[in-house]
């Protein structure tokens, strides 16, 4: 160890010992009561205040802790702090600088009277590098009266300089604003001026007053002046400019000018002023970027009562881009700062400007009109209670798909506990239209809505109420489906839950009036009072309407329950529904939707009525024009009958599984076809009735098929219809096919039932196939009738337009071995004996009249007697000539009752109402209808080629008929 090293070691040891000695000395010195008292006395003398310190301690290395510090003047407490924690660095002490001062729970009491007294005592120049105040209170007093109290003050400031120049200069860093605060106070207390500047930290400037050109860079500049002449009232003016002053989320720019007049006794301070805020409302509501921004100003007057600590705003007039307003109110600061009452009326709210705060899609609509908002506000500032009413008249709303011509809104509202409630809002709209051109459209001449609305933060919203529409309409893009004059009303509830992109819609709506045209089907709603109950949910992301349960109820038709969904609701809707009904009345539906819609095309519908009760459940899937329906239906006590009870089918019992599709739907793969049963208890036609009839039946892929023959015992014989089927009841309901078999029908009964001229015989035949294609029903096979001792065969039976008002029946027929005796007797045509045979081809009967035929009938000599009576001769003559030949026969042949003939017959062609009549034998230009025999008495009836108008033929037949009577 060198000598230098030893010396250095001694010096360091001595310095450490010296420091330890100093610290130990300070520690014990600060703990001594004498030093504490000395320090309090010294500070009291230097400051002019009486200072008391309960506890004093030194904490190494440089901390001084003072507990329960009281600063007072005689008769008045000025400052009371629970604890002062002072940090002093040795070198800072030389420059009157405190490194750090922490003040806990200080209560600073300022007496106005004392403050306004002149003082000559100079303040010490003290600098504070860090100042922290926690839970401080400033109490402004006047004498014994507390004028004002500011509680819960927490302050953190850096680099405070006090009293360097004339008056008070204070500077402090404001880390929250990333800036610094400069305060300059000058003048005597009764004529005091104060300048406060806050500016960014990097804009360093030695003093407040030395940089007037730097105002543009200042965040805040406040100039306040107080004039308080002795024995007079005080007057203060405050002017402030602020630029991008950040308070919370708001960034404020603007200015404030205010004048305050304080009465002599300092009981009331009346104020007035004007505040201007630029970039409103964006400055205070940054989220409202799309709101129109501009300058907002408020001119205000009011007063502050020191004793009651009540701030009364007598009037405030506001102008802003969001409307103009006026208001008044009262704020009380004890026991807690709160708005006692405030009334604000905002006029001329431009809806189209404020729509950006509306939820989608309301923010995309176009609004023409302005609103008013009357608000009453009360409560503490962090839990305000706002009650008011929103009004708007003559508001017009348009969007791509919607138009409301005139909407009036009255909405009482209340904001409380972070929840907005609108109770019994009234909306009255006219000319309401929804739907774009070339799409489905709905409209209402009048729409009245009464609704209540509730929205809570993070809790979604719910709207419930009731509505009524008048003059409601809807129409499809091609107008083929439409509704008019619909009066719809009922309660509804719309709810939106957060976190779920869906809206619930519940309601129970009734149509009191209205008409619907759905293609060719017309329905008047008034008689059926349809009611629709819905419990649905709209999933916005999927554009899907989920029907949890919907129910359509029509009076005298029944109720249909629906569950499922509608996909692509706003585009091309497609169904995925299950439908069920337990009390569907097909008769009611027929009267409601079908009878009047198709009665001009099918007049029979006006004469028919349906009965029975149906239950069904089915699945509906596909687009509206490509719908597929699959399910089961049951019919009980069904019946079809004419209103005059001319014929009746029923009771019908049906259990039918079905699967049908609209033409645009793809054909479904055919699996195993499910079959049902149909049984008809009785079929009645006039006096005839038969039954029961039972068969299995299926309806799959639009094909309706009956599997067992329909067998009936009727008219004394048997009728059987087999293989009855409709290949496509939706696209081609007129196409059907079946086979028929008739056995020994008694013609007597049949002709009586058909009100024909009665005759005897039997009808037997088989038609292997009857096929209906478009407007033609065609048969194969033939029917034979054993009639008049011979046989008639009917074939090539066709019916044109069988389901129209003008069906036309066509057939070929041949007669063989017909006994003329029976025939003439049956038709009261006199008496003719002999055998007749012949054919009638291309017979067409239209509108119950023969319109064409080609016939050839002649007698056949089979050795039997062939005679013709005078009466028959006369009738043949009348028929062929049009004239009664009674006198002729009476004169020339009055001696005979009948004549022999060798041959009789005729050939006739009917077309276009003209009957061409020829005889059974032609000799030159003579046509023999009757050729006499060789043996007398005999007769010839000779005609020439006759062309007889059909109307004339009818007249002649009528003449014969009347002669017979």
């Amino acid at each position, binding site marked *: 160890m060198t000598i230098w090293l030893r010396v250095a070691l001694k010096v360091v040891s001595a310095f450490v010992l010296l420091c330890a000695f100093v610290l130990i000395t300070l520690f014990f010195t600060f703990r001594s009561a004498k030093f504490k008292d000395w320090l309090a006395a010294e500070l009291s003398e230097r400051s002019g205040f009486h200072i008391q310190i309960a506890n004093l301690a030194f904490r190494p290395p440089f901390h001084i802790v003072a507990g329960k510090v009281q600063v007072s003047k005689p008769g008045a407490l000025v400052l009371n702090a629970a604890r002062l924690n002072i940090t002093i660095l040795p070198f800072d002490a030389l420059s009157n600088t405190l490194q750090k001062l922490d003040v806990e729970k200080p209560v600073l009491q300022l007496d106005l009277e004392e403050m306004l007294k002149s003082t000559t005592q100079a303040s010490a120049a003290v600098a504070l590098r860090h100042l922290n105040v926690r839970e401080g209170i400033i109490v402004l007093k006047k004498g014994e009266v507390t004028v004002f109290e500011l509680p819960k003050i927490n302050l953190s400031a850096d680099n405070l300089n006090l009293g360097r120049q004339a008056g008070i200069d204070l500077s402090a860093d404001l880390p929250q604003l990333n800036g610094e605060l400069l305060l300059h106070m000058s003048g005597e207390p009764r004529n005091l001026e104060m300048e406060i500047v806050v500016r960014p930290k990097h804009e360093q400037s030695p003093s407040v007053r030395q940089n007037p050109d730097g105002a543009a860079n200042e965040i805040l500049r406040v100039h306040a002046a107080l004039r308080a002449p002795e024995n007079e009232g005080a007057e203060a003016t405050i002017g402030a400019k602020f630029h991008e002053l950040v308070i919370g989320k708001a960034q404020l720019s603007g200015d404030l000018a205010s004048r305050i007049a304080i009465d002599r006794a300092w009981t009331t301070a009346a104020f007035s002023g004007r505040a201007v805020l630029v970039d409103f409302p964006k400055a205070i509501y940054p989220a409202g970027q799309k709101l129109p921004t501009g300058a907002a100003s408020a001119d205000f007057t009011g007063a502050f009562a020191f004793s009651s600590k009540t701030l009364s705003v007598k009037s405030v007039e506001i102008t802003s881009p969001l409307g103009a307003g006026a208001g008044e109110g009262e704020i009380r600061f004890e026991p807690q700062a709160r708005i006692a009452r405030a009334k604000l009326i905002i006029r001329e709210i431009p809806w189209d400007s404020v729509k950006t705060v509306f939820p989608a899609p309301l923010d995309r609509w176009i609004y023409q009109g302005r609103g008013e908002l009357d608000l009453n506000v009360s409560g503490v500032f962090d839990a305000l209670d706002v009650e008011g009413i929103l009004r708007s008249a003559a508001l017009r709303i348009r969007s791509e798909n919607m138009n409301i011509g005139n909407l009036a809104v009255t909405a009482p509202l209340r904001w409380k506990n972070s929840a907005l409630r609108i109770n019994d809002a009234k909306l009255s709209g006219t000319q309401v239209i929804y739907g774009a051109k070339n799409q489905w459209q709905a409209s209402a001449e009048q729409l009245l809505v009464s609704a209540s609305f509730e929205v809570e933060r993070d809790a979604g919203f719910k709207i419930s109420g009731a509505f009524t529409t008048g003059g409601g309409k809807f129409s499809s893009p091609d107008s083929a489906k439409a509704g008019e004059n619909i009066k719809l009303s009922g309660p509804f509830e719309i709810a939106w839950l957060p976190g779920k992109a869906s809206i619930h819609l519940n309601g129970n709506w009734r149509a009191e009036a209205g008409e619907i045209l759905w293609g060719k089907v017309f329905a008047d709603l008034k008689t059926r009072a349809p009611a629709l109950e819905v419990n649905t949910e709209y999933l916005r992301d999927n554009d899907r309407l989920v029907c949890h349960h919907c129910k359509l109820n029509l009076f005298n038709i029944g109720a249909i329950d629906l569950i499922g969904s509608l996909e692509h609701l706003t585009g091309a809707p497609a169904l995925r529904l299950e439908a069920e009904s337990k009390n569907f009345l097909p008769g009611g539906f027929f009267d409601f939707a079908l009878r009047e*819609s198709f009665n001009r095309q099918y007049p029979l519908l006006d004469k028919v009525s349906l009965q029975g009760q149906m239950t069904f459940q089915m699945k509906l899937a596909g687009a509206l024009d490509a719908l597929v329906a699959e399910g089961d239906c049951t019919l009980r006590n069904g019946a079809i009958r004419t209103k005059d009870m001319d014929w009746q089918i029923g009771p019908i019992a049906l259990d039918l599984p079905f699967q049908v599709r609209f033409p645009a739907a793809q054909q479904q793969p055919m699996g195993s076809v499910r079959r049902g049963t149909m049984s008809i208890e009785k079929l009645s036609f006039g006096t005839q009735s038969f039954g029961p009839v039972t068969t299995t039946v299926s309806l799959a892929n639009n094909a309706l098929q009956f599997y067992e023959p329909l067998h009936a015992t009727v008219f004394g014989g048997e009728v059987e219809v087999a293989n009855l089927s409709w290949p496509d009841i939706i696209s081609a309901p007129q196409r059907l096919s079946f086979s028929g078999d008739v056995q020994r029908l008694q013609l007597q009964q049949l002709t009586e039932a058909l009100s024909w001229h009665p005759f005897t015989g039997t009808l037997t035949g088989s038609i292997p196939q009857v096929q209906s294609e478009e407007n033609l029903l065609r048969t194969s096979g033939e029917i034979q009738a054993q009639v008049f001792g011979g046989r008639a065969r009917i074939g090539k039976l066709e019916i044109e337009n069988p389901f129209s008002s003008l069906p036309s029946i066509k057939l070929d027929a041949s007669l063989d071995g017909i006994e003329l005796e029976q025939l003439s007797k049956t038709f009261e045509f006199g008496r003719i004996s002999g055998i007749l045979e012949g054919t009638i081809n291309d017979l067409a009967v239209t509108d119950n009249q023969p319109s064409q035929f080609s016939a050839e009938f002649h007698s056949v000599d089979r050795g039997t007697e062939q005679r013709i009576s005078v009466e028959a*001769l006369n009738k043949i003559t009348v028929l062929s000539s*049009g004239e009664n030949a009674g006198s002729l026969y009476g004169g020339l042949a009055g001696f005979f009752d009948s004549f022999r003939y060798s041959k009789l017959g005729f050939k006739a062609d009917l077309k276009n109402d003209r009957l061409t009549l020829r005889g059974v034998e032609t000799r030159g230009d003579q046509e023999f209808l009757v050729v006499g025999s060789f043996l007398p008495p005999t007769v010839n009836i000779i005609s020439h080629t006759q062309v007889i108008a059909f109307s004339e033929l009818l007249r002649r037949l009528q003449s014969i008929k009347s002669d017979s009577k």
Partner: protein
Amino acid sequence: MLKRMIFLVAFIVSACVTVNIYFPAAAVERAADQIVKETWGASGEPPKPKSEPQSQNLFSPAGIVSVSFLGEAYAQDADINVSNPAIRALKESIRVRSDAIKPYMDRGNIGIAQDGMLAIRSTDGLSLKERADTQQLVAAENRDREALYAEIAKANNIAKESIPRIKTIFAQSWIDQARPGWWIQDNQGNWKKK
């Protein structure tokens, strides 16, 4: 060579087939005018029955008893036949329906299209019930008119291919006899008031 020439000429001559289809245009025009007048001529009045010639008879005893009579044959004049049960029924159906259609034509809702068929021109001022009614009326009327033209063709042995010509001739009659104020569609498809 001569034989070949003769054969060639004979072949060419035999190959020249002339098909001459007769279409009684003038008669159809007269028939159309008559039918349109009968069916739509006057509101609410049934058509006057056309007087049809009656058969005559002549008695001429021959032999012991011989009855002879001579009927007057209809002369096949230039007119076509427009009377048979189907045509009568269709005419009657059209006539009865016309009373229901004419108010809609007066109001301009139904017009006569260029092909002579009825068309719904406008539904302005119509209730849905009236719209349904006009749809049914127009459909039924056009169906009857089509059927009428087909029946006229059939009754007069006019080929099916000529039915459009009948329709065209009738179209002109419907248009010519339309009341002033009714809407008619021109060849360009534009509607004009008569």
